[in-house]
């Protein structure tokens, strides 16, 4: 085997809903975090593939043993199939970035992967195990830290990263965040989906819709506070496509994450040294796909009034903010350090 010389550095954001990769060769890709294997020989013949990933898997789900292998930002516990799905997802991301398993000879891959802020040691070890054959060296970081690093918001900043599985909060004090500086809440995008599903079912019991439809409705029309445009969706009722006004349900579902989010934000703020609290309050960064809920930034600013006011900046393109941050870390880490991270 030839000695590997060329190095590809990548940042990977393994998300419950979407996973993204940013690579030092300029490639950036995002895929939906779904992996599916054909259910039988017929399905394999039709699909002409042994494994399908992302949107392609979702679109052909009726013929697949479909897995969404990450739950609350972590590999699902106890399922070999989900572990295999994570490996497939990672290999897929790497191949999109130009490091597929067949033509990897001579290419070293240094990867930075984000995990939820309060991931336990065992979770990090699971990620390391899943990636051990796919990359040469691996650095695991907390997701909000990767976001902060990528945005260079390293001092007197609070990052609120709301994804599908988790909401991560992290105060950056110019040092590596400790447990006291971070929080992970399990009320995030998926929680909103569940609430929206339940509330819509209660109001329109005769309507038929799936969680995938509910997710699409949320991505289109989520809001907190008030909206001038009603949220109207289409779903079959007794087989007939029917328009349903779900504005009230959408608002309730989106606002269901607010109590714990606001409480955690204010609690973390009280833990900041008093002379820096105002700076942190005025430098709150809201990222993640669920962070794009209309009106959420303003609502958090309104809640900050209770402690003297503050400013919330919403990251406009949250899809790659985590993986770009990971790539920044991968680029800045000296080569000597990567040699320590091969285990």
């Amino acid at each position: 085997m030839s000695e590997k010389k060329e190095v590809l550095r990548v940042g990977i954001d393994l998300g419950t809903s979407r996973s993204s990769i940013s690579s030092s060769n300029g490639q950036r890709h995002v895929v939906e975090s779904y992996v599916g294997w054909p259910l039988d020989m017929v399905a394999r013949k039709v699909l002409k593939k042994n494994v399908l990933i992302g949107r392609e898997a979702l679109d052909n789900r009726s013929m697949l043993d479909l897995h969404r292998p990450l739950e609350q930002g972590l590999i699902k516990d106890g399922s070999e199939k989900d572990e295999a799905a994570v490996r497939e997802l990672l290999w897929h991301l790497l191949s999109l970035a130009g490091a597929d398993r067949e033509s990897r000879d001579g290419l070293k891959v240094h990867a930075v992967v984000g995990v939820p802020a309060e991931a336990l040691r065992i979770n990090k070890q699971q990620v390391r195990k899943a990636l051990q054959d796919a990359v040469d060296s691996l650095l695991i970081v907390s997701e909000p830290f990767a976001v902060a690093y990528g945005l260079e918001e390293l001092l007197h900043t609070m990052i609120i990263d709301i994804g599908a599985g988790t909401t991560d909060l992290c105060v950056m004090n110019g040092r590596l965040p400790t447990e006291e500086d971070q929080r992970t809440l399990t009320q995030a995008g998926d929680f909103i989906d569940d609430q929206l599903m339940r509330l819509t079912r209660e109001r329109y019991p005769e309507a038929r819709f799936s969680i995938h439809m509910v997710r699409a409705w949320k991505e289109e029309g989520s809001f907190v506070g008030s909206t001038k445009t009603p949220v109207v969706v289409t779903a079959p009722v007794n087989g007939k496509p029917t328009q349903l006004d779900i504005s009230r349900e959408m608002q309730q579902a989106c606002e269901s994450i607010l109590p714990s989010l606001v409480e955690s934000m204010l609690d973390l703020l009280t833990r900041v040294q008093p002379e820096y609290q105002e700076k942190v309050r005025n430098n709150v960064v809201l990222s993640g796909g669920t962070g794009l809920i209309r009106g959420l930034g303003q609502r958090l600013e309104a809640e900050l009034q209770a402690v003297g006011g503050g400013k919330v900046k919403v990251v406009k393109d949250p899809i790659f903010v985590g993986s770009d941050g990971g790539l920044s870390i991968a680029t800045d880490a000296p080569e000597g350090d990567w040699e320590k991270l091969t285990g």
Partner: protein
Amino acid sequence: MAKVDRIKRQLLRDLVQQNVDLIEGRRPRPKPRHGSLWLGLRLAALALVSLALFGSSRLLSTLAEPGPAVAAAAHPGKKGAKPTLPAPAATAFAGFAAPRPVDAAIFPLAVRKVVIDAGHGGTSVGTRTPQGVLEKALTLDIAVRLKRLLEKDFQVVMTREADQDVSLEQRGTLANRAGADIFVSIHLNWIENRRSRGVETYYLGPTDDPYLTRLAAAENRESGYSMADMRHLLDRIYAGVRQDKSRKLAEVVQGALFHSMHKLSPEVADRGVKAAPFIVLLATEMPAILAEVSSMSNEDEAQLLIKPLYRQYIAEALAKGVRAYAQGGEGAPEMVAGEKGNPIHE
């Protein structure tokens, strides 16, 4: 710019070290704290505020989601913490909903309604971690998480949803009046050997074990019953079919709990399914268990318990157990659709 670069270099050094520690299986190194005086003052202030608010639901809401509250850092838990439960005025014996024999003909039935009992609450604080986090706050947090997990498939009734006093009698009466199918009481253990970590689950039954007798006496202190009263009541119920159902529920929940928690921390031991005369179990008319879901006396376990994600794992393990019981002959399989095989919940 130079300042940012300096910060980045330091962050990268720390990050790499943290990862090397993970690879080599070392525990995270304690970080030098900036502003430790501030932290000390803040903790002291928190302790004072907590004392002032003791018993209010506001305190509990602070404790519940974002992390632990240091309620009384100066008084770490110790052996006997459970026996220090305050004993309220004796409950009138007649006020207790008398246990009725259960007719086996009514089984098997679907599990539709689950009562979740968050142990302790209000003036009954339970035990506490060495850091001062109270059992009553942790049990409520886990109970609320469990409720969220189960309410998609079951009707869920909580015996308390805030930091409030609810007597053992009231808990049982509430479950009986709700027509619950099963009753799950959540507690956290204090084990004399503080190196021990484990989970155990109880169902109602007699015991000859002096430790369990002491534990039950401590947990039952709020009820106002004497042990003689207890024996009288127990004689009427031990032979019932409910005991078999309760034992089965305990076995399934204990299995799920141990399987999940042992995977997270291999040191967590299976302390087994045990019978003990807990009043809260006696007061109920349906299959009922009391799960000791963690050991607050163990330093590592106490550190984990302050993490919301760990409490979520415990809730998920309990939910897994309840669902498995519901599926195992007594339950309606359609209620757990989506849990097996394909993980996509439609």
